[in-house]
Structures are given as structure tokens and as C-alpha cells.
């Protein structure tokens, strides 16, 4: 946690915030009467609150090295179930809410089971789960558009106005605070980062990496579940909102890893990313009124974010090599460093595979018994 507190206002670490300010200035100048208004900000804040929660939902497993692609579908299902339980099954609101939240956690648990016990890669497992959940969505609603819930309490869950801002924004911030606290200030968070950083080293350091991965997926499911319920509270029943929220969640998490604590998935960077993207989209839509802007923006953002992250990784690696290429007097030390440098120059040459692999073997000191 400590590394990262160094107050280094380098362009890179805060580029998101600069960009955000840039957008605001740009669009204010462009459409002065429409953009820079209270209602615009409310609108952005509110619509992004649920999106932000889903970004947090994917963030937790990402830290541990797992991909959860089912959060959108999970949110959609729990959101619908919360409504349908009341309107179609006649359950009291408390039961409906509890059940929906539990459902979210349960989906996460099943994801964890598939990944840890059945040893299916998380990307594939949750992709499949997402599809299964969409099927359940149809089953649960009998393929009909469900009627909205009449209860004011239910609607107030997200819509209750606090100083002009819907309470859902604060709920999202509260969730962000909790996730931040766990990730950066508790041993559990350390275990998550260690598992994601190098799961084998984590295992050999006494971390139960399977358990960590499983729990991270359960948490993702739970957060997605809550997010779904709040979405329903905000907008009423929708059978299609889940998939649309998935990509921007990942875009935000990846973009967020370039902010504040570059190279590391982190909570506040993710939130900054969410709002930067949303502000950009909102501004563009006001300016041009095009419908496709959101998808375009989020897609480009995701690609850019990952490209930036990868670019940094390679820069870090080559920096490391360059500084230690000096032949050391001891000679033996160069065993460790030189091969990496040599590999860089050898790239692009047609070489025999064995020679390249020979380097890897040398670094690990003799061949292994496979």
C-alpha cells in the first residue's frame, strides 16, 4: 500500500484526472448551456453508479488473476429476480431482496467451483456461466416483460434523493471504500494481490491460492448481485442491461490500473476511469447526438488501456535490463541479467528453438526433471 502513496504528480499517474478535466473544459466550451449543468452531472453520476459497482465486481477477481465475464448477466438476473419475486411470486420485499443478494453470491460460488474444482480457466468458465444465466433470465420471466414493482421503498433503494443526488451514488462510493479497505489495508487484500502477481510463488509462500481465487469470484458475484438490484430500483425491469455493462466494467478496471498506482489494479483508479469515460461519452452525445458513441468509446478505451498497460510492462522490463548490462567484475552475476538482454536482440532472428530455451534453462540452473 505504501509504495503507492508517494505523491508523485507525474503526468502518467494522474493522466485520467487531467483527461477528465480536459473533457469538461472541452465540452463546456463547445456546448456551454447544455453540458456544464447540474443535471448533466447528476445524470452522469447516477447512470455510472451501477456501472461503477460492476467495475468493482470485476476488479476483485482481476486482482487475483481471474476473469469474471458473468457479472453483467448476474446483475441482470438478480435485478429481474428481485422484481419478479414480488410481482409474480408474491414474495414480501425483504424476502425478494435477500434472495436476490444470496443468488448473486451463489452464482459466484458456482463460478468458483468450476474454476477451482473442475480446473476450468476462469475466462471460459464465466463466459459459459454468463450464457447460462441469460437462459435463466428467460425462464424466470416466462419470456414476458415483467411488470414494474409498485413499492416506493424498493424504488427508493436507489432513487432516494440526498441533496439532489440519487442515493445510489453514495452506495457505490461506500462499496468502493469497503473494497479499497480490503484490498489495500487487510491481509486478505495482500493475498489477493500475491495470488494475482505470481500464483505459484504465492502457493509456495503458504497462501491457499485456490481458496483465494474462489472467494474472489464469490465476492464478484455478490457485488454484481447488489448492483443488479439497484439497477432495477433505478430503472425498473430491463431484460437487456447486463451485457451492455460488462465491457465498460473491464475497460474501467484496466484503464484504472494505469492510474494512481500504475501497473496495479486499484479501486480509485477504476472509479476515475469510469467517470472519465462517462464524461467523454456524455459530452460527445450532447455534441453529436449519435447513439453509437458509448460502445465506440468503451471499446477504444479498453484496447487503449490494455495497450498502455502492456507497453508499461515492456518498458519496465527493458529499463531493468539496460541498467544492468554492464559486465560485472564478478562475471557470474551476468548469468542472471545478460540472457534477458540477449534475448531482446535475438528476437526477429531465425534461430533454432533450443538455443532460446537454453537460456531459460540456464537461468533456472540446469535442466529440470519434467
Amino acid at each position, binding site marked *: 500500500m505504501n509504495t503507492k502513496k508517494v505523491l508523485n504528480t507525474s503526468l502518467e499517474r494522474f493522466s485520467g484526472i487531467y483527461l477528465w478535466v480536459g473533457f469538461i473544459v472541452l465540452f463546456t466550451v463547445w456546448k456551454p448551456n447544455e453540458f456544464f449543468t447540474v443535471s448533466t452531472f447528476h445524470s452522469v453520476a447516477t447512470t455510472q453508479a451501477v456501472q461503477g459497482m460492476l467495475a468493482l465486481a470485476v476488479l476483485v477477481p482481476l486482482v487475483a488473476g481471474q476473469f469474471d465475464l458473468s457479472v453483467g448477466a448476474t446483475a441482470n438476473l438478480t435485478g429481474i429476480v428481485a422484481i419478479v419475486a414480488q410481482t409474480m411470486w408474491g414474495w414480501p420485499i425483504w424476502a425478494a431482496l435477500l434472495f436476490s443478494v444470496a443468488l448473486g453470491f451463489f452464482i459466484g460460488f458456482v463460478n468458483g467451483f468450476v474454476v477451482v474444482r473442475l480446473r476450468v480457466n476462469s475466462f471460459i468458465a464465466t463466459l459459459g456461466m454468463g450464457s447460462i444465466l441469460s437462459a435463466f433470465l428467460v425462464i424466470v420471466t416466462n419470456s414476458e416483460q415483467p411488470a414494474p414493482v409498485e413499492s416506493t421503498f424498493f424504488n427508493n433503494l436507489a432513487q432516494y434523493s440526498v441533496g439532489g443526488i440519487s442515493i445510489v451514488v453514495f452506495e457505490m462510493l461506500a462499496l468502493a471504500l469497503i473494497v479499497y479497505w480490503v484490498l489495500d489495508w487487510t*491481509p486478505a487484500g*495482500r493475498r489477493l494481490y500475491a495470488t494475482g502477481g505470481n500464483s505459484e510463488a504465492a502457493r*509456495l509462500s*503458504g497462501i491457499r491460492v485456490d481458496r483465494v481465487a474462489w472467494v474472489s469470484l464469490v465476492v464478484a458475484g455478490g457485488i454484481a448481485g447488489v448492483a443488479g438490484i439497484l439497477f432495477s430500483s433505478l430503472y425498473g425491469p430491463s431484460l437487456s442491461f447486463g451485457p451492455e455493462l460488462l465491457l465498460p466494467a473491464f475497460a474501467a478496471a484496466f484503464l484504472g490500473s494505469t492510474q494512481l498506482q500504475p501497473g496495479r489494479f486499484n479501486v480509485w483508479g477504476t472509479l476515475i476511469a469510469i467517470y472519465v469515460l462517462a464524461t467523454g461519452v456524455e459530452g460527445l452525445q450532447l455534441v453529436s447526438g449519435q447513439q453509437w458513441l458509448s460502445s465506440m468509446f468503451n471499446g477504444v478505451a479498453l484496447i487503449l488501456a490494455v495497450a498502455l498497460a502492456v507497453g508499461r510492462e515492456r518498458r519496465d522490463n527493458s529499463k531493468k535490463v539496460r541498467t544492468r548490462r554492464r559486465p560485472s567484475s564478478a*562475471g557470474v552475476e551476468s548469468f542472471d541479467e*545478460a540472457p534477458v538482454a540477449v534475448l531482446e536482440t535475438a528476437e526477429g532472428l531465425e*534461430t533454432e528453438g533450443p538455443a532460446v530455451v537454453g537460456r531459460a534453462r540456464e*537461468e533456472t540452473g540446469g535442466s529440470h526433471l519434467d
Partner: protein
Amino acid sequence: MLVGQNGSGKSTLIKILAGYHAPEAGGDATVSGEPLQFGHPETAYHLGCRFVHQDLALIDDLNVLENLFLGTRYPMHWGAIDNRASLRAGQEMIDRVALNVDLRAPISELNASQRTGVAIARALRVDEKYPERVLVLDEPTATLPADEVAALLDTVRVVARQGVAVLFVTHHIEEIFRLGDQVTILRDGVAVHTGPIADLTREGLVAHLTGERQQREVVKAPAVAKAEPRLTIDHLVAPGVRDVSIEVAEGEILGIAGITGSGRETILGAIFGATKRLGGEVVIDGRSVPSGRPDLAIGMGVGFLPPDRKISGSFPTLNAQDNLTVLNIGRFWRGWFLSPKAEEGEAKDWFKRLDVRPLDGTQQRFDSFSGGNQQKILFGKWLSNGPRAFLLDEPTQGVDIGAKGELHRQLISVAASGTSIVISSTDIEELVAICSRVIVMVDGRIDREIVGEDVTEANLTRGFVSNPDG
């Protein structure tokens, strides 16, 4: 034959020949009288050098023929692969090395010496533009069981008879006498002897390998009085380990030596639980350590430093502090948060104690430190947990001489405070320097135990001889 101990420079030399390292100015190499340009792998190939490295780079799922043509063009016919011509060419290649395998057999079905044979056949691929002149084999028998070594040596003789010069790098003293004509012995990066094998005796060879050592400052572990065994390994069976029983006393530094394939590389992992045991028991302080559970082993006071820092020993992308404190982060818990001050204090403390440079670099990325400092940080990680038994696999690999000495002194002082230490290493000098007792493993079992005064380089090197056979 090229022979030398771990760290003598054999592999670096091969890599220089192959073009992966550029040596410092002043030396040169020629092949058939033509100069070899350093730093460019193609020039080695153009001069006719062909290499078979220790990792054969064969693809298990493909068959022999496909592997033979890996990296080169098939004979073509009308835009598609000409199967009959390919088969003929492939057959010629394996006949040339007198190898008896089915071209269509998948590599996974071949035994180790056959695979090496395929790799050699492939390396000797006929290229009219750059005819093959020199075949370099880097420790080809390292992973071969004793009974297959003979087959491989025969293959090598066949190749030599065809006029190809063979540079055979090995650890095994027996092979030098069975196969070789000339031998060059490397020690500490210098060729200390070159000459016909006929002129050399086994003792002479070993003497060259180990050298007349000055009594350099040997930091020796004090001899341990016969104390109660703290760590007991009973009939351990694991991948590479057939049946090993060891007892380690409090404060003892035990060494495990052995060539590749002897079980040395896998035994510590099996004891700790990095890999599951197939049989046998591990007991520390009277408690049985469950198999394959690193977390429980750590809880019982066992520490394990794996040989490969980058892959499984550390978190390269996290900072030094995170690496140091990962074992027991809970000790910094202050009610509802982890205290950054406490954690940083502890990290700085260990940096000072182990002299990690730069001293104020606790927040720097782990992989930005040099090999020696990385290893010191990892020492700190395990020592800060107060292990009762500390297992280290290749503890000073990739570490410069200065840091090596410091790490050794650390281990001795840790042992003096009661911890049992087991070091598995291919660095004979290291074992001689700090171990009071060394076990030599051969083929998965303990071949011999060398104690106290007898722990010398000469004795250890001699101990590596595999079962002599016909």
C-alpha cells in the same frame, strides 16, 4: 569433450559459440579456418556449427518426421508438402545417425535416448549451402537413465566417423573416458587443460577440475555434536526420488549433491510440499508434515527457497517490501488496518541486517534488484518467519561472489542459532564451504554420505559417477 563444474563457464562458452552471448574483445574462434563472428547466431550456422541444447526442443505431440522438419522447409510438390519425398529425407536423416525409430511415432512414445537421437539427426540436417561440420552437444546425457547412455554414445561415435567434429559437454567423468579423444577442462572460466584423453588418469582429471585450492577463507560450519534429529525424512518417494531417508539435527547444515536426474532438484520441493509426495513421511520436531501443503509446512516451521527466483520463488512485479512480508502479513495488523509504518520498519530492518543494496529501496520493484540482492531479500522473507528447518535449493545461483559469501555467512549464523538447514546445490564449492555433512544422490537414492573432514571438492566430484556399466 568439454568438462567443468557448475559455474566454470561451459554453458556460457556454448552460448557464445551459438551466438547468444557476445564475448569481450580479445578472443576469437574459427571453424575450419574461417573466423566466427560473435553475437550472430546465423554465422555459427553458416560455418557449419549445429547445436543440440539440453532442452531438446522437440514437440511431444508431433511425430518424429514433423520434428525433423521443424524450422525448415519440407520438400514441396505443386504447392503442397511432398509426403513421399519427406519420408525419404527423414529416413535418410535417422539412418545417418543409426537411429531405429518409426518416423510416424509421436515423440511422446520415444525414450530419452531416442529423443536425443532425433534431436541430433535434426541438427545434422543436410544443407548444401552450409554443410555441417561441428556438432555441439550440451550435456546430452544429463537426463538419460544409465542404460540409455550407451545407445547415445554409440550414436555419437557414428556421427564422428562421418567426419563431423563433435563437441561434447558433460558432467560425467565416465563418459569422458569412454567416448572422448580430446578433452578440455574448464575451471572458473579458464581452460586449465587441453589434451588427449589417453594421457589423462581419472585422478588427474579430477585434480584439474577442482584445482589445487589455496586454503581460502573457508567459512566452515562448526561440527555438530550428535543432537536429537529435528527433521526426519523417512523413505521419501517423489518424482525423481526413489527412496530417501535423512535425519537432520538442530543447527546442522546438510548438503545434498547430485547431477541432473539424480533427484537432487526435486527432493527439497517434495519435502516441503511444493510437490506431492508419492510415499514416505516427513517429520519436524515430532510432528508429521502433510504432503503437498506448503501452508501447513510453513506453519510447522519449514521454510523453502526454490531454485528459480523468477518463476516460483518471488513476486517480480511487487516491491521488495511485499516480497519480504508475504509470509506473515498478519503481524502488522492493528485492529482494523495493516500498519504501513510497522511493515516498512521491518522491511528496512531486514535490508540493513542483510545489507541489501540500495538500502532505501524497500519500495522498489523486486526485479529491479540484482540477483544477489534479490536472494538476500528472499532470505529475509524466510528468516523473518523464524524457520526451524530451512530448505534451500541452489541458494546462490546467479549471485555474484561478494553476495555469495554474505549469504553463506548468514546461513552459518542462522544454523548457529538452532535452525536446521538443508542445501541442495550443484555448486560444489558452496557445499564444501558451509556444509558439515553432504549426501550424494544418484538415480533417486542416496549413494553415499560424506562427513566432516571428508567434505572436499575432490570427494564430491568423484561421488557423481553413475553406476559404471558396459
